[in-house]
């Protein structure tokens, strides 16, 4: 039942607003609202009960294994939440003067420094609000760089076909044309194809390594050389940084600009869709273009770097300093991990992924790249099952929900048919991985013996399989007063 359907005219939670209603008659009528907005009218208890109950219809990390490839759904330490929510931090106004911001700014500064160190970049700006905005910032810097050099023929960004959709979309938002590079049979970028398309029109290439195919591109140095020689820059999509944290630095691989997804690698929660944070790091030549604001230290004092101090900056992309609260959570997480903890992230996430891959293969599942080492994630393809049993990836995914596991990422990357992209993360234990593997085995049996059971899944969730086509055809995007009674 919707909260609107529990509404009763005149009801509200009186303690939640001023007890006296202030006089607003001095606002001329022409500016005023004629009818009150039809928001729900409920008591405090009704709201609390409704949204508490609603929450229980979600899967989440705190309740389920969530091996969603490319998303790094790892445990979010609860301390990050409570410490970032200390009253002094929550009440700081974004325009508070530096005199009243040194504690906050110290956290940002140290986070910049830690990210710099672990990525091997020259400088970091924390302000992008998520990965995609980090991509925008990164590509905008590439553009600013070429423009500053008068190198104006560069109108193309290269993107491997395995790339996340945000990569081409971000390139376009920066005014570039996108050119896809195919993947070779072993999962690495097709180097010859790349060589064939780079040239004076190449502004840069956007890569993630390990890629979303769950393999580490072994030719990365050759790729970097190829693009650099053509005058292009290398962009690193940091969504998969978890796989190599503390093991390899993007800077060492030759990248000129990177973004990080703190809501993945640095464990800030996903919140049912966000918020995230997508800091960018750059090599020497892109430093002047970093988005503002950033924090610098002068002696014992932290100061803001803004448009004034950074005239060549691509500027700010949100009104204030980005998703500050997410940055604080990532900072706390990084301090908890420390120098020792970071490589362990890569090690155990990789261990878990390789273990799962091997065991699933033993059950008869087909790896997309069986000859390759898995990174922190890996792909299996169900094209055999889809063909022979008529049970496809979506069916497997939905049936997994019945077993209490969130489904892996489905049908991404697009180039692998009927694929599941599986990322266990380092925070899960073996018993949980085994539970998931067992469920996959059982579903395989079900698919053989009773395919209808799998195709009709899920059976045990608040709703059965939903009609997406109807949703898109008969758009119903908001409850309206007229929907009532």
């Amino acid at each position: 039942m919707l909260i609107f359907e529990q509404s009763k005219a005149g009801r509200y939670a009186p303690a939640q607003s001023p007890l006296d209603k202030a006089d607003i008659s001095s606002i001329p009528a022409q500016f005023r609202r004629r009818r009150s907005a039809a928001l729900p009218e409920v008591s405090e208890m009704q709201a609390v009960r409704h949204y508490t109950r609603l929450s229980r219809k979600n899967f989440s990390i705190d309740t389920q294994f969530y091996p969603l490839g490319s998303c790094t759904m790892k445990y979010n330490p609860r301390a990050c939440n409570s410490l970032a929510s200390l009253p002094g931090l929550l009440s700081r106004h974004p325009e508070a003067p530096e005199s009243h911001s040194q504690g906050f700014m110290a956290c940002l500064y140290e986070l910049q420094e830690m990210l710099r160190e672990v990525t091997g970049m020259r400088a970091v700006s924390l302000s992008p609000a998520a990965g995609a905005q980090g991509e925008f910032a990164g590509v905008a810097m590439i553009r600013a760089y070429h423009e500053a050099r008068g190198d104006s023929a560069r109108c193309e960004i290269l993107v491997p076909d395995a790339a996340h959709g945000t990569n081409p979309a971000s390139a376009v938002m920066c005014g570039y044309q996108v050119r896809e590079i195919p993947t070779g049979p072993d999962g690495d970028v097709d180097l010859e194809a790349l060589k064939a398309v780079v040239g004076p029109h190449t502004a840069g290439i956007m890569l993630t390594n390990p890629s979303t195919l769950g393999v580490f591109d072994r030719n990365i140095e050759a790729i970097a050389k190829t693009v650099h020689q053509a005058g292009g820059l290398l962009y690193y999509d940091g969504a998969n940084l978890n796989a190599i944290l503390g093991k390899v630095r993007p800077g060492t691989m030759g990248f000129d600009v990177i973004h990080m997804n703190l809501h993945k690698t640095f464990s800030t929660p996903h919140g049912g869709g966000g918020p995230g944070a997508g800091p960018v790091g750059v090599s020497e030549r892109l430093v002047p273009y970093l988005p503002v604001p950033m924090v610098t230290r002068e002696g014992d004092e932290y100061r803001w770097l803004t448009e004034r101090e950074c005239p060549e900056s691509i500027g700010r992309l949100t009104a204030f300093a980005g998703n500050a609260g997410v940055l604080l959570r990532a900072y706390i997480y990084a301090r908890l991990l420390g120098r020792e903890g970071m490589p362990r992230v890569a090690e155990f996430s990789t261990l878990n992924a390789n273990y799962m891959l091997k065991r699933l293969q033993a059950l008869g599942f087909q790896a997309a790249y069986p000859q390759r080492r898995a990174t922190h994630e890996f792909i299996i393809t169900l094209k055999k099952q889809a063909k022979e049993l008529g049970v496809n990836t979506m069916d497997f995914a939905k049936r997994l929900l019945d077993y209490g596991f969130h489904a892996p990422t489905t049908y991404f990357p697009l180039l692998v048919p009927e694929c599941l992209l599986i990322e266990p993360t380092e925070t899960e234990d073996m018993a949980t991985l085994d539970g998931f593997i067992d469920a996959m085995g059982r579903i395989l049996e079900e698919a053989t013996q009773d395919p209808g059971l799998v195709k009709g899944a899920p059976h045990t969730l608040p709703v059965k399989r939903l009609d997406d086509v109807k949703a898109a055809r008969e758009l119903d995007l908001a409850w309206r007063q007229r929907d009532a009674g």
Partner: protein
Amino acid sequence: MLAAIGVGSLDDLFDEIPASLRLSQLDAIPTALSEMEVGHLMGKRAQQDGQPVCFLGAGAYDHHIPAAVWQITGRGEYYTAYTPYQAEASQGTLQLLYEYQSMMVALTGMDVSNASLYDGASALAEAVLMAVRANRKSKSKRILMPRTVHPAYRRVVHNIVKNQQVELVELPFDPQGGHTDPAVLEQYRGEDFAALVIPQPNFFGVLEEVDVLTDWAHANGALAIGVVNPLSLALLSPPGEWGGQGADICCGEGQPLGAPLASGGPYFGFLCCQQAHVRQMPGRIIGRTQDLDGKVGYTLTLQAREQHIRRSKATSNICTNQGLMVTAATIHMALLGSEGLERAAAASYANTRALVEALSAIPGVASLFDRPAFHERVLRLPAPAAGVLRSLAAHNVLGGLDLSRDYPELGEAILICATEQRTAEEIAAYAEKLARVIQLQGGVTCGLVPKE
């Protein structure tokens, strides 16, 4: 596990990575701390910044947030869920987002709402790009952008849209009223613009002639984009009802709906539009549908607009949004209802009036604009604003925003705000401190800047 994999050590798992690339140490990263130690550290940092009394607004407002909002939003099921791609396992988030969209539609008077963008400024950038795509009558990439729009918003819009050759044409404001005089638009009549941006209230807190401006846009083939404070909509005419046809798109900063100040984020941008433009809308949208048994359920819909399907042809690159803030906003709006939002808005309006009255009693201090305003006001000071604000901060008062950087034409002026949270005592204390500070800073002697 290593045995099951068939390797001898953890290190073997990284054997496909060229050895030359491997990293040996992370010297610049401090060693691990225990939760207790990080707790002590953060406790100190949080205290260090004090908790000054806040008369700052300028896009981020210190409103009351019911305790229930974050206690529920913080539940693991909301806090640690991913984007609801598996709809059947995400009905909590999905139904909540559908309710959110419904609430925003009720508040703005528009037809549809998306499920959030990053913040108010980037939402305006997306609205501008959307208008360029959606305006079938215009081939122009030019946008009329009043100077009364938040300066940071104007910068962000510029930074984001300029790469797609979208151009912002700045409209001056009326120095008496602090609003966009519809008369200034006359010089653009006949030119082709994709859209006119209309802030309500504007950056100065002043109310714009939204009906006239909207009608002008429509009469001239441009779309009307409202940039609104959602709390103000509890009192003010909703964009969907501006002028004859209503605004085409409206957007803004959702922070006043349950997000703490928190140094500027995470907040959330909202974006609503008329039904006709829904397929040009960026960001996620939730639709109501049915399951196999005909039972009502909720799901992501119109995904063909989005980057993960449409890639380079998507309406935007946005992927991760500000879901958790929207969760909080939804619970916030449910708890307050329109009665509660009205009371909060009205009290903020009244408090700011009281503040203006108290401060204007100080010689040399005067309210700059004479038109109706919501809960912010520009004051002229008889002494350098920067210095005054610094002294006030030293007395634990955030006295307002110095406007000299963005609006040098206003002289020594500050933008002030008193939400419903400010008490009469705090207002009186501010006035008293300001009087003292001005006196000490050798503010104008009587007669130089006569009291209006």
